């Protein structure tokens, strides 16, 4: 059952709340707004009573699926539970009621929090400095690449190419292209890792950087990362770390020690700040010493126990975000780091890897596994074994929705046919992982015995199978009243 739009429920006869006259002199809009910009008709706003509005949105909220409701096995996009402690800290009046234009002297506590977070993140990933401004992961990628570009330009080198693996997150080539680089793809070898011979053939004096996720999107650790770093550095290029999969490594090993020069993080993935529609995100980006002078300004400095924003940075690539970035997210991330402690963060990564390997092992035999385990915090299976019955990864995903779970990532990474990518994260209990396993096994069984029933699922949700093809070919982006005017 679906919920009609508030516009569809609107009735002329239903009065909204009636406000008393304000008792203030009004201004005729025609006096202050150019005639061409004035509306001729009143806007068609829905007219509903307060309880109707309340019920409308509550019903919509009840249809929503979130990590607060059940398990969220979305691979390559760490969807961690967001601890309530984070919200308590972020709503402390001293943080929540700050104004971005307040003078520096009156926000020393907030600046100290940013300083502490920068130090903590630098220690976790092994870089020298960090910029907290970027508003999301892709924004961090772009910022990191701009610094690499500035570094090469500063040395008078013309480097126009960025290399990305064929298993990369789509944002990597997109950020590189947005920065004006030509994107060059490097192949994965049969083991699912960067092919060193292919990388060697793609590296040249034109290479500005190699962008890498480690563990990669197949959930596999790039075991030859030190050799990769040497190869990249030997042609004068920089190695970029996409932090999307840091959840496998916290407190275990550090990108900086692996030879990465630039590292971006997703606080909304690894550090439990809200994700997606619950955002906004935060994508801090860290650099090694030789790139520090190109960091966005202002940087945060400490002088005699006083925190100050430093704008005097002539080689900076400039500001990348207004004010202080998404400050509320910074509060939540530091709260998480301090609540967990160093031991807690390592334990989280170990548990995330353990959960993934437990699920992977339980699903062996039911699905195909194109790459050998063990995996890190996520794994990629293939539903290719079901295609003989006319069942595809998408049917498996729809079957999981029917059984009360969110669907895993499907059809990514592109190098695995019928890909099903699962990342359970550290907070899920064995009981939850077992329930998910049972659901997958039941679906695989149904694929053999009654594929047509599976193809008709979900049947118990507000909507069944949506026509994705029609939606993409003929998108209807605006509601219009039915033939009224």
């Amino acid at each position, binding site marked *: 059952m679906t919920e009609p739009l508030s516009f569809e429920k609107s009735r002329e006869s239903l009065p909204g709340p009636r406000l008393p006259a304000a008792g203030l002199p009004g201004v005729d809009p025609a006096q202050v707004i150019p005639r061409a910009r004035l509306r001729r008709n009143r806007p068609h706003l829905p007219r509903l009573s307060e309880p109707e509005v309340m019920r409308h949105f509550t019903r919509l909220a009840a249809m929503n699926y979130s990590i607060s409701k059940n398990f969220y096995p979305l691979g390559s996009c760490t969807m961690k539970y967001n601890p309530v402690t984070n919200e308590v800290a972020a709503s402390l009046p001293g943080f929540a009621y700050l104004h971005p234009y307040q003078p520096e002297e009156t926000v020393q506590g907030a600046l100290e929090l940013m300083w502490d977070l920068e130090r903590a993140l630098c220690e976790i990933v092994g870089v020298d400095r960090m910029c907290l401004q970027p508003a999301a992961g892709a924004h961090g990628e772009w910022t990191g690449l701009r610094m690499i570009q500035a570094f090469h330009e500063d040395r008078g080198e013309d480097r126009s190419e960025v290399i990305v693996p064929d298993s990369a997150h789509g944002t990597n080539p997109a950020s590189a292209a947005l920065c004006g680089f030509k994107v060059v793809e490097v192949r994965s070898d049969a083991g699912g890792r960067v092919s060193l011979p292919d990388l060697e053939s793609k590296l040249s004096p034109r290479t500005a950087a190699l962008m890498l996720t480690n563990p990669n999107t197949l959930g596999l650790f790039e075991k030859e990362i030190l050799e990769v770093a040497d190869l990249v550095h030997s042609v004068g290029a920089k190695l970029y770390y996409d932090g999307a999969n840091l959840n496998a490594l916290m407190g275990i090993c550090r990108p900086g020690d692996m030879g990465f020069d630039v590292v971006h993080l997703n606080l909304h993935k690894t550090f439990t700040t809200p994700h997606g529609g619950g955002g906004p995100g935060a994508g801090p980006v860290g650099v090694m010493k030789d790139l520090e002078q190109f960091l966005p300004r202002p940087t945060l400095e400490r002088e005699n126990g006083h925190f100050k924003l430093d704008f005097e940075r002539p080689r900076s690539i400039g500001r990348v975000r207004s004010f202080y970035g998404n400050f509320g997210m910074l509060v939540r991330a530091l709260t998480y780091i301090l609540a967990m402690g160093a031991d807690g963060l390592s334990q989280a990564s170990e548990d995330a890897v353990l959960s993934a390997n437990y699920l992977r092992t339980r699903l062996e035999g039911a699905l195909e596994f194109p790459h050998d385990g063990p995996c890190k915090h996520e794994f990629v299976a293939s539903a290719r074994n079901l295609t003989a019955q006319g069942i595809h990864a998408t049917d498996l995903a729809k079957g999981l929705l029917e059984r009360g779970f969110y669907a895993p990532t499907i059809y990514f990474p592109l190098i695995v046919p019928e890909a099903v990518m699962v990342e359970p994260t550290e907070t899920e209990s064995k009981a939850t992982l077992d329930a998910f396993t049972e659901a997958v096994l039941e679906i695989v069984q149904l694929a053999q015995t009654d594929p047509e029933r599976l193809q008709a699922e979900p049947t118990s949700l507000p909507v069944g199978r949506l026509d994705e*093809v029609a939606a*993409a*070919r003929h998108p209807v982006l605006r509601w219009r009243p039915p033939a009224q005017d």
Partner: protein
Amino acid sequence: MAERRYTESHEWVSVEGKVATVGVTDFAQSQLGDVVFLELPRAGLQVQAGDAFGVIESVKAASDLYSPVAGKVVEVNDRLTQQPELVNKDPYGEGWLVKVELSNGVGDGLLDEAAYKKLTGGRAE
């Protein structure tokens, strides 16, 4: 129709006189699933063999399209704007993408039918 040659990135090319017709293979369309959008170049674009000349998007994924040959794009299949499904229905016929006026011949790097079939595990047709 002249003999088709193939790329490892799943484009096909067929040459008549100085003009090469380029499309994606049946294997490519079957792997992509329903094509929903194509970003194609304008006539006049100069391409080198291996250059990306457009984007193909399905409900599953978006991929670059790579030119198998060098030359100038002289014609673009405008029908695909309204009917991207032609790529699924008839990838070697009505679903062609662009016509390229060759600057040289066709390079040696392309695969013949047998080699392409081998690449795709016998699933080319």
